[in-house]
């Protein structure tokens, strides 16, 4: 059983809050040049390929005749195994012409998607897990920040986040107080807007799209939309994979792997404000897959 083909009867998703959403299933480079990419989504083995540059085809291996909605966006192929009632969320910056758009490469992780999202929303671990890059002791404090759920889009936002970072991006040469905004537009996808050393008025966009393979297993798709004309794709990817590689053993040592939604199950603190809201929001959306419901 490999990361991309893990499947068992009880891992097939029946939760419409998840089944009816779009999920990433392949990086664009995985289906380039006519390649067929085999993987697993929500317990269902699938195959992905491109019929045209922007036209993806996804087939269920267990039921090749069944229609599967598919599309290409953000350097990924996306699929929906249910009814795609909502369009995929927008990342406006992707349309800006001077942006570098990079898929940093998929990584299989033995953890649930919402645990990975929560880790992405977390600043307090920077000095300990990304030592010398995204944080450094003794700058350990997480200042209070604001959290709200956008009444129009129903996205969770954390704003006014600040953290001291010694080497925040490939373009950094020195430490800086970084400003972050986090956005959760989808139960398993999270977008970060952060200060760039290149332009005071604009922000780098870093996203983590989690492909839920099983309730306790994902393929992570790190996605970058940067203001960076200097670094090679290889070094941009190396930086992002280094960061994610540091998170991975933490994620794989979280017990239980599924995210407990009962607020008493773990001990939140003020710094976890966005995670507290995220867990309540998952409950309100009716998410039961990859979580331990209240």
């Amino acid at each position, binding site marked *: *059983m*490999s*990361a*991309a083909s893990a499947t068992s009867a009880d891992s097939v998703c029946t939760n419409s809050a998840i089944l009816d959403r779009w999920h990433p299933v392949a*990086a664009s*480079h*995985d289906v380039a040049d006519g390649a067929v990419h085999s*993987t697993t989504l929500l317990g269902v083995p699938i195959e992905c390929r491109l019929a045209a540059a922007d036209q993806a085809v996804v087939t269920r291996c267990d039921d090749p005749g069944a229609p599967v909605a598919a599309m290409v966006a953000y350097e990924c192929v996306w699929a929906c195994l249910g009814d795609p009632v909502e369009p995929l969320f927008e990342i406006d910056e992707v349309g800006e012409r001077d942006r570098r758009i990079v*898929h*940093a*490469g*998929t*990584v*299989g992780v*033995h953890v649930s998607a919402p645990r990975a999202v929560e880790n992405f929303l977390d600043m307090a671990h920077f000095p300990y897990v990304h030592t010398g890059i995204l944080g450094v002791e003794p700058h350990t404090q997480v200042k209070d920040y604001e959290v709200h759920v956008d009444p129009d889009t129903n996205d969770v936002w954390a704003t006014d986040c600040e953290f001291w970072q010694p080497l925040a991006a490939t373009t950094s040469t020195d430490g800086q107080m970084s400003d972050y905004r986090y956005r959760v537009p989808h139960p398993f996808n999270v977008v970060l807007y952060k200060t760039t050393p290149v332009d005071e008025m604009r922000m780098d966009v870093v996203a983590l799209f989690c492909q839920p393979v099983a309730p306790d297993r994902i*393929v992570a798709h790190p996605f970058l939309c940067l203001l960076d004309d200097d670094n*090679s*794709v*290889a*070094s941009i*990817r*190396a930086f992002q*994979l*280094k*960061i*994610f*590689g*540091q998170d*991975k*053993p933490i994620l*794989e040592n979280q017990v239980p792997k599924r995210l407990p939604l009962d607020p008493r199950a773990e001990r939140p603190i003020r710094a976890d404000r966005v995670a507290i809201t995220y867990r309540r929001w998952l409950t309100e959306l009716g998410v039961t897959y990859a979580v331990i419901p209240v």
Partner: protein
Amino acid sequence: MITLHDYVLSANCYKVRLLLSLLELEYESVAVDFHPGREHKGTAFREVNPMGHIPVLTDGEHVQRDAHAILVYLAACYDRGGTWYPVDDPARLGDTAQWMAFADATASTLSAARLAINLGYDLDLDAARLGGHEVLRVLDEHLWFQERAGHDWLVDGATPTLGDLAVFPDVVLAEEGGVDVLDYPAVRRWLDRVKQWPRFTLMPGVFPFTTS
């Protein structure tokens, strides 16, 4: 000037970075887009290494391929104490080479499982894991007896060798391939000892040994 064709998540590249640090050697790292770019299989990189493997080290005019060959080369050139590759002591040299060869067994098991999980390589994961446990059992028993005999390292003697260095990366990353090291306490203690080497460096997935 030393240049290393490098990939941040490669255990084999890590071996070389580790020795470069231990020997206090300055070097330039050239990022190879191993994943997802598969740059190591591209035409340009094959001019550096026709085998299409990383790491590759260049030192002046000399180009060295193969992680273990690079370790031997660096130790021969720059290890003034002569401890990492003990050519003056045939028994210890033989044991060092034996443990470096043992790392081939960790590569085909522990490292293979890690590649399957992390990068989705299509291979027999169950077999790789089972083999990984066999390798770890052998290693744990050897290290347990080494401890009882008063030896901290894989090869008898006061100092570690390239044997420790070659075996360490795949073992410390074993759990990324889903091979649980719960059952190998002597291995875990040895990992802690390696992490306490002066100028030890980390790679993503490896935690430091810290006591505060």
